[in-house]
């Protein structure tokens, strides 16, 4: 008898390798996704080249000229301590981008694996696992952030830690929901009837399909993550002043309506990065969707 088992497996293995290549091919043919990618890379470049392209020192103060509107000397205006906003926006990416990326990606990976596994195993691992998720969700992140700030001191790394600890549950819930639906679906039943082990089914077949909504969330979460770092600075976490950071800059201007440039420009930075990530996320979802369906 032909070993259909290993034949299937080999085919599956081949499929998944060229899979990713095909995903990339499709992605590169998507203009919006590509423009998103270009935009993100652009910001990364700006952040890396900051010391060479920023017109002023981002922490140099000029108190007598505080709150001045955009002008030929200061294209984006000046903040409450007289610092050039353009320079601060340029430098701000160096903190905001890596922090948001790290938090969102790590939280998504952990959350999706956690939720996927829980949903797949079902019964009491699922029950307990999801109750833990409930508990983390209900936990006042505020206290956690303050405790971390008090115990470990203010720094951007500690604010990342605080965010990570509470950021993963939505991914877990999303993945679990998807997995529950998939578990009951036809093609998983088919895979089972072929005799594939549970683990293989989970890793090769279920998880990749469960990932799609998580990808969408990830893309949208990026902007959110930058914004939350602003809230954390109120609690003593976050980038220690005078280090520029987009979220904190937006927060600084929140009560100043006349001086709109203080919040608007870093806000636009966050917005463009968030939009770019969304385009990438969308493109990824579209590229992955029909591909991963092993028929």
């Amino acid at each position, binding site marked *: 008898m032909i070993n259909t088992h290993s034949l299937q497996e080999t085919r599956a293995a081949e499929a998944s390798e060229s899979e990713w290549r095909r995903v990339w091919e499709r992605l590169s043919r998507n203009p919006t996704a590509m423009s998103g990618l270009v935009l993100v890379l652009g910001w990364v470049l700006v952040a890396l080249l900051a010391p060479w392209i920023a017109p002023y020192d981002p*922490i140099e103060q000029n*108190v007598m000229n*505080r709150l001045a509107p955009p002008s030929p000397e200061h294209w984006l205006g000046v903040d409450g301590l007289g610092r050039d906003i353009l320079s601060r926006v340029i430098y701000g990416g160096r903190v905001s981008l890596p922090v948001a990326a790290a938090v969102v990606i790590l939280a998504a990976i952990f959350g999706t694996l956690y939720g996927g596994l829980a949903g797949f195993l079902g019964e009491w691992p699922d029950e307990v696992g999801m109750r833990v998720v409930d508990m983390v969700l209900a936990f006042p992140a505020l206290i956690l952030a303050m405790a971390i700030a008090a115990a470990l001191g203010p720094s951007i790394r500690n604010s990342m830690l605080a965010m990570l600890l509470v950021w993963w549950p939505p991914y877990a819930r999303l993945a679990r929901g998807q997995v529950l639906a998939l578990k009951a679906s036809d093609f998983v039943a088919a895979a089972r009837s072929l005799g594939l082990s549970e683990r293989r089914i989970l890793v090769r077949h279920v998880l990749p399909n469960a990932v799609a909504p998580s990808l969408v969330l990830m893309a949208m979460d990026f902007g959110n993550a930058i914004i939350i770092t602003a809230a954390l600075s109120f609690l003593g976490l976050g980038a*220690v*002043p005078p280090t520029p950071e987009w979220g904190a800059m937006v927060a600084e201007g929140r009560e100043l309506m006349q001086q709109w440039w203080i919040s608007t420009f870093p806000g636009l930075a966050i917005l463009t990065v968030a939009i770019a990530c969304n385009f990438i996320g969308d493109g990824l979802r579209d590229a992955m969707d029909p591909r991963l369906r092993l028929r």
Partner: protein
Amino acid sequence: MRRLAFVTLIVALIGAVGVSEGMAGQRAAGKALIVALDQSDVKTLDPGRQFEYAAQFIDLNCYDTLLASKGGSELTTYVPALATEWSVSKDGKEYTFKLRKNVKFASGNPFTAEDVRFTLMRLKNVKGNPAWLMDPLKEIQVVDSHTVKMVLSDPFGDWLALLTGPNSGILDAKLAKEHGASDSATADKDDKSEEWLNQNSAGSGPFVLKGWLRSNAIKLERNPNYWREGPKVARVEIRDVPSPATQKLQVENGDVDIALNVTPDLIAGMRGNKNIKIITGQSLDNMYLGLTTGAQIHPVLAKKEVRQAIRHAIDYDGIIALTNKQAVRGPVVYSVGLLGLSQADADRLNPKQDLTKAKELLAKAGVPNGFKFPLRYGTGPSPVGITYDAVVQKIQADLKRVGIEVELVPEEFGVMMTKYRAKQEAAVVSYNTPDFIGPSSWVGQMVLHTWAPRLHYDSPAAKELANKANSEVDPKKRVALYQDLIKLLLDEGPYVMLVQGKVQVVTRANIEGYQYFPIGHARLLPVTKN
């Protein structure tokens, strides 16, 4: 799909109708005075227990004290209120007050000396936040129905000042006792009136407290039995609006008559608006930089030349600019406006920015190339109109110019305060708000207790001067003693006084009679809404 569209339409319709109806209802609003005030710090409205800004406001208007501060630039001059005259014994320990006759509380109960005795003993015995105000009091005697004698354990120059504060507002003893109030020695356990006093007032003031919906609004009504000519407005609604920007929008829109928390930067953008008025007053709140004198905490800061150097390195005008010029330099001891300390005095006494001198002093102290120290501060707003955040970044930049490297450590305000009180800080930026309007409030905190031990400042010479000045009853002698203290503090003290804030209140153009008062915001008695 059709059903969904239908639902959307219905929701939109309800929303639109609701909005227009709601707005119509608003326009038909009556003649109550609407005040916007941030009430996040209020815990209670009981005059025997409260010690927060917004609560002081309520008690100032619902209760009367024996005497009142003249206000404006004469804060330590007193005028009669519930007492018509008073005298002090030669040794400064006995105060006799003659009380006003024919005064009724809002409830109709007559005002007598017993109410005074009850109020002050309750304040002391309930052991709440403001109980220590009555520390100097040894005993209080009801001489007759309209005469009270207070005996202090030691002479205290600011005793009258203590009696003008809203915490000393006289309670209607009969009414309060009906609702569980007690002045017994164990009043902290016996007194059960707090919740009732949070919703009602038992006073003789121009207004009566009619209810408090937490985080929402406090309602006051005119007192029909007021012993003087009553207030012009019949009702006051004090809404809790914690965001200054929102207050600005509300007062511009006419939904609010008086906005008390609008920040200087926001106000700068409101000038020229014909619908509003900006009323400025000199607050007594200070922001200061505290440097430790304890060598075990930071050996370099412990050297007095280093602290003097820092005093000369800071760009005070720059910090004032940060407040949009809505602040003045605070002098070293107590705030401008008190006991003979005018703005001119402050200008004369205060250290000026002088970078050369600063560098010389650092060299003298043995650190010509500067040094490092951590500076802790609280995130969030301060009472002087700018954030600590902005000020410390300015200080960091200033000190950098003389080679001193400041490491900024932001903390949530409560966390910072706890560590500060634990005496572990090398340097902090914090604020001071007067507990009562008398110089000993500041002097006590700076030299005798509170800040001094936290910064390990223990100077027998300063303490002796402080105690002498605090117990001196003759104002002229007091001023001279305080001036000596100022010189001493400028030489060896741990404080760098930064700014003393001005307060700006925004009112609608049709509001008259609002005048800022440093403790309790303002008296609403003379306010009219045309």
